[in-house]
């Protein structure tokens, strides 16, 4: 069941972007926060852009290393389409320069793989709190 945040008419709409099917399902399963509605999942940046236009999500979880279009390029394009979208990068790339680059391009948070369910839920909750 979806529960909306106080003063909000609809649940937060989330798009999941990751080239791993297992990871996309993991993120979907771990959304214990019932303020969320998963509106789609994409396996690369090109698919993500298409789904983003169709579903108009409030939040996006974004992998970085993906075929066809990587996460950094996708973030730039998503922010152009919707400047107030909240983006949580979920990536194994653990160097500081990549995190800084992603944030400068428009990401709002960064969660490193591997992660626990608790870390994932906290990262998403933080983003929702900022919406």
């Amino acid at each position, binding site marked *: 069941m979806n529960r909306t945040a106080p003063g909000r008419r609809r649940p937060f709409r989330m798009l999941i972007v990751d080239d791993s099917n*297992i*990871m996309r399902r993991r993120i979907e399963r771990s959304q214990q926060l019932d303020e969320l509605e998963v509106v789609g999942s994409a396996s690369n940046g090109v698919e993500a852009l298409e789904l983003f236009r169709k579903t108009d999500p409030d939040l996006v979880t974004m992998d970085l*290393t993906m075929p066809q279009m990587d996460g950094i390029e996708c973030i730039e394009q998503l922010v152009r389409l919707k400047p107030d979208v909240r983006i949580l990068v979920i990536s*194994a790339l653990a*160097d500081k320069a*990549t995190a800084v680059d992603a944030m400068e391009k428009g990401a709002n948070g960064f969660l490193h793989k591997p992660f626990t369910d608790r870390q994932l839920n906290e990262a998403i909750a933080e983003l929702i709190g900022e919406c």
Partner: protein
Amino acid sequence: MLQEQELKTFVEGTTNYFEVAAQQPASVGSPYLVTEGLPAVHEYTGVITVSGRREGVVYFTAPKAMLTVLLMKMQENDFSHENMRDLVGEVANTISGNARRDFGNEFVISVPNVLTGERSDPPLVAGARSFVIPINWRSHSAKLVVSLK
């Protein structure tokens, strides 16, 4: 050439992966140098090609039985061939990506290329020294192979 400290990065990455993703620590052995060719692989192998400041491959190779238990620990109930391929690639990607904490962003990693079958040959990079990091988890054995110039 690969230095001892650099290998430690991969050992720590592997240890961390099993602790966090599988919620059960693995016994990660001391790396050893392969003197000829590349070591034999298990049924599923996730290969990451490295470019940039370093050149070579990093691959994680594991038997189906180990991947099945890993999937169970991740609350997955799909044990298809495709999911095994997905998982072995994701493990290789995660450990290689985590290595950028020490190697920096000029350690450029590819998306995973997955090989199946114990007769498959991961790419061998001429002039690279190959180290095997043995991994024992529950009753299963796997390997992380780091072959970098």
